[in-house]
Every structure is written in C-alpha cells, then in structure tokens.
C-alpha cells in the first residue's frame, strides 16, 4: 500500500504538486494522468525520492519513505521509464541483474531470475540473455526495462510512460502483456501516462491531475461515467461509452451456447434443427476452423461454398480481449460477430454486435465486479472507495 499525505512540491514560486493525497491499495494499478506539466511525473518521482517533497508524507506499507536511505528505498521499488535507460555496456542478463547484485544475491540465483523474467516478458532467454541493448528493437528494450524493474521482485512498481516510446502496434501488445503479468504478480503499481486509452485499459484507479491538483481519483468506470469536473469530462473525451468497452472482457458477455459441429455434414444436420444462422466448424480437437452460413445453404449452395474457412489467429479473439478489440475485429473483418477462442484455438463462444451495443447501453452493468452495485444500478459502483480523505 502506498499512501500520499498532503504532498506538495514547490520549485521557487512555482507549485508543481499541490497538497496531493491519495492511496494505492495492495495489488492495484493507479494510473496518474493529465496534460503536460500537471505534476504526474513529479509525483511518481517523489515516491522513490528521486525528487524530495517540499512537505507532506509518503508511506509505503506504513513506513515513512523519508526514514529510509534513498538508495535502500529504491532497491525495493521497481522503476521503469519511457526512455528505458538500459546500460548499453552490459548484456540483457547483466542489466536485469543490477538490483539483485546490489542486494547481494548469489550468482546462480541471479542467473535463474534473469531466465525466469525473460520468459515472463516473452523473450527467449537463450536468445536474449547475452545480447547488448543496441541489438534490441524498441519493443524488446521496453520489455527488458520492465523485466529489470521486476528483477528483485519488489512489491511496488513505478512506471513512467513505460510504453510511450514504441509504435502503436507494439504499445498495444505491451499493454496486453503487462495486464497479464500484473494479473499474475499483483504488484502495487503507480503508472504515469498521457494516453487516456492506456489508463482506462490498465488502471484499477485513475488519478487525473491538472496543474498539480488531483481532479479525480476513482475507478476508470466512475471517471468515464461520472466525471468530477468539466475538465475531467473534456480530458477523457466525448466517447466515454466507447472507451468503456475497453474495460469489459469478452468472456464476461460472450454467448457460450453457440451451435458447433465438427464437419460440414454434421453442421448441415444441426442447421436443420436450429434457428441460428451460423454454425461454427471445429476440428476434432475443438479448434475453430470456420463456420457455415445456413442462409447460404438454404439457397441451394453446395456445402463447400457455404462454409467459410478462417484462421482463428486472425478472425477470433481471446477470452481476455476487451469488447473494444471485439468491435474493432468485427469492423476490420466485416462480420457482425466474432468467435472467442482459447490459446489453442478451441471455441469458447462468440460476441456479437448486439452484445456490444447492449453493454454500451447498460453502462456499468457488465463491469460490475462481485461486491459492487447490482447491474443496472444508477449508483456509481466505485464511488464507495474513492479518495475520501
């Protein structure tokens, strides 16, 4: 748990951060966002004392950060930045080993940890461990940066626009991977970005800042649905409903009782007794191979032509994909629904345009988590645990 109590940072007459108070619960991702000069990076850098606050206190798991030596404090807080800052004269493995070495780990343990982390960030250890930073692409360097920040398994992670310097495609991939890693590791993360979509996608809590003030500190859903001020409303944009789709996982709304058949003939038999227009075709392992359009079949088209063969890697989405991704996949491929498959391509269900529409209309309905307000309620689900200090 990270607690900021009345933190202020002044540079001469200029107030960079003004009486900021908020709390990040264990295992939560708090995203600091706002226009340039809002104080978000200053705030982040005060947590590991790269910048000393003018006044106020920062508690990490109840310990006042100022009571520790700054170097000691930082060795137990992961730190990843936009420009990555890998050491160019050290290999990837040596870069990752930086903090474990400072903490006096044994060489064998350090090596094992580097291998483990490279696996975690999706880079083959045998191929990457001995590379030098100049041999890495931007996306690879960012991954190593995150691995290095996680090296000593710190409970707290500070990330300053860690995916800001890569192209949109890579950024998207890195966000998905980070979300997955975070689900697994449950670090307490403070994350700075200026990208609203990134904030909505990754945050448990969004801290929206402006000119050193905290405008709103709340769940992404609450920020989207109930902006605390006109500034927040304008900042998150007019397409709040569309943005909210990024918060909804496909497997929470997908239809699972979809008609499935293993070959064309079986599909025809099923189609005869079905009202559904599409029947999914799978191979004997259950991996998606395509679908059969009943309306085409009824027009007397031969079976081979009525079946659409697809590659599930391109035409399907994973269960943890967002409805935003589902929608963009539908638009890109020109279908009104998109199948949901697991890692091996096995069909889990499908999400249709109607499901997406329903989610947008229902507002919080599908994002409500256990213990929150019932679906359809007009109350703000996350208002209960807003700042309130």
């Amino acid at each position, binding site marked *: 748990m990270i607690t900021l109590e009345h933190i202020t940072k002044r540079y001469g007459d200029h107030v960079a951060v003004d009486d900021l108070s908020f709390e990040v619960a264990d295992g939560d991702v708090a995203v600091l966002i706002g226009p340039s000069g809002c104080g978000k990076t200053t705030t982040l850098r005060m947590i590991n004392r790269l910048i000393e606050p003018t006044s106020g206190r920062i508690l990490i798991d109840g310990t006042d950060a100022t009571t520790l030596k700054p170097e000691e404090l930082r060795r137990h807080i992961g730190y990843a930045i936009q*420009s990555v800052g*890998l050491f*160019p004269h050290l290999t990837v493995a040596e870069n990752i080993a930086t903090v474990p070495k400072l903490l006096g780990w044994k060489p064998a343990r350090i090596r094992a940890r580097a291998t483990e982390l490279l696996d975690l960030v999706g880079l083959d250890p045998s191929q990457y461990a001995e590379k*030098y930073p100049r041999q890495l692409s931007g996306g690879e360097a960012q991954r190593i940066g995150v691995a290095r920040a996680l090296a000593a398994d710190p409970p707290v992670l500070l990330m300053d626009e860690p995916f800001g310097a890569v192209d949109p495609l890579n950024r998207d991939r890195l966000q998905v991977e980070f979300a997955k890693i975070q689900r697994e590791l449950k670090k307490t993360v403070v994350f700075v970005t200026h990208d609203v979509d990134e904030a909505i996608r990754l945050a448990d809590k969004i801290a929206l800042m402006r000119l050193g003030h905290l405008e709103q500190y709340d769940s992404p859903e609450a920020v989207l649905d109930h902006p605390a001020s006109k500034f927040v409303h304008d900042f998150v944009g007019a397409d709040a409903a569309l943005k909210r789709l990024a918060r909804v996982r496909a497997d929470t709304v997908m239809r699972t009782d979809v008609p499935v058949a293993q070959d064309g003939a079986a599909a025809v038999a099923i189609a005869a007794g079905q009202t559904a227009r599409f029947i999914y075709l799978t191979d004997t392992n259950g991996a998606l191979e395509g679908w059969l359009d009943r309306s085409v079949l009824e027009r007397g088209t031969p079976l081979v032509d009525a079946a659409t063969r697809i590659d599930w890697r391109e035409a399907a989405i994973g269960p943890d994909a967002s409805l935003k991704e589902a929608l963009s996949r539908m638009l890109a491929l020109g279908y009104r629904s998109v199948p949901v498959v697991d890692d091996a391509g096995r069909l889990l269900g499908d999400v249709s345009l109607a499901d997406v529409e329903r989610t947008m209309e229902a507002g919080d309905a599908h994002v409500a988590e256990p213990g929150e307000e019932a679906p359809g309620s007009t109350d703000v689900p996350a208002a209960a645990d807003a700042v309130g200090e």
Partner: protein
Amino acid sequence: MATIALLLELPRSGRRRFATAGIAVVAATFFALIGNEALVDRMLVAAFGTVPDPVFATPLLALTLQHLAIVAISSALTIAVGLPLGIWVTRESGRDFHDVVSAAVDFGQVFPPIAVLALMFPIFGLSPASAVLALFLYGLLPVVSSTVAGLEAVSPAVIDAARGMGLGRFRILLTVELPLASAVILAGIRTSVIINVGTATVAAVIGAGGLGLSIFTGISTDNSGNLVEGALAVSALALVLDGGLAVLASWLAPEGLES
C-alpha cells in the same frame, strides 16, 4: 590487397589481436634499430654524408629512454590530475567551476612550454622537474576536455534509471558513467601523450636530456645527421606510442558499445 580485405572482414576481436601483434612487431623493430648505433650511423652517412658528432653522442637508446621517462612521468601526472578534475566539474559539487577549469586548462595549453621552462628555471634549476611541469600543464587540456565531453555524453536516461534502481552516485560513476565515457576519455589521453612526445624535445633546453638533445646538438653544430636522427626517432616514437595506445583503448572499450 586481398589480405587487407580479409582483415577487414575479421570480427573485432580478431582485428584487435592482429593490431596488437602488429604494433608489438613495430615497437620491437623500433627499439632494435635505435639500439644499433652503428647501423643508424651507416644509414645517415648514406643519406646525408654526415655522421652524428661523437663528442655529443649519448647513445640514441639512452636518449630515447630518457625521453620516454619524461613523457611517462608528465603524462601520468596529467592523467592523475586531469581525470579527477574532469570528473569533478561534471558533478553537482563542481559544476560551478566548469567554466573556470576549462579556461585554466585552455590557458595551460596556449602558454608556450618553453616559457614555462623559463619561469620554472629559478625554482627547479637545471632539473627535469621543470620540463615535467611544463609538459604536464601543456597536456592537461585534452585529458580534461575529453573527460568532460565523455561524461556529459552519457545518456541522462541511463543515469536516471541507475539512480531509480538504487545505485549510489559513486557506484554510478564507476560502473556506468566511466565505462560509457571510456572511449572518449582514452582518445583524449592518447592525444595528450602524443603531444607530449613531440613537446618533450624542449626538455633538452634545460639539460634534462631526451631526444631533443640530439636535435639541438645537430642545430648548434650544423650537423644534419644529429638533427635528422633525433627528429626521426621522436616521430617514430610518437607513432609507436599512438598505435600502442590505440590498441590498448580497443582492449579496454566495453564490448556492448561496438558498432
């Protein structure tokens, strides 16, 4: 030609090993030649018809070693003072002195070494100390300015990451900044040493010896043999040292920075 093309295809470690062997052979040849007074004399007779005056002729090898000693001591001093000075003015505590130190070091180089000798003469008299001091001041500029340039070229992001991970300032300097700046710093040291080899000939003016003695003897006795002998030895020594330092730098350069 084919051999050269093949060499350029070698990986860096191979080229480096080849260059090391090459400079070792050249250095050995140089000293063998310098040590063989009779052969040098025969060559000079053939070229100029004059023989170095035996009256003034300290063996060439002894002059060379004297020369090397003066260069080694003054360069060691230059590095011992210049490197810390360059580091200091890039630290927070010394940043305010950056411009003052730059100006002082510039002055050290524009002030003629022969004038330093004249100024030091009343203090140190006819001793090599005056020559060493003059050369030390003269060689300071390349060392200090390359140290500053090398350290200032280290990416701020790398230093920010290092600080953010909990490395202390001294550890960052030793394990991050200096290795990353090493190529630039070594280039500066190399320049300084080579300048010193040439400038050290003035040491002979105050009787500190060195290859300058051969040159000045040649001038004062109108003996081209002596003059050319000293001048050639100095140039050859500078070339050998330059090659040796270049090879040394290539061994010291961090591997990750290879391009």
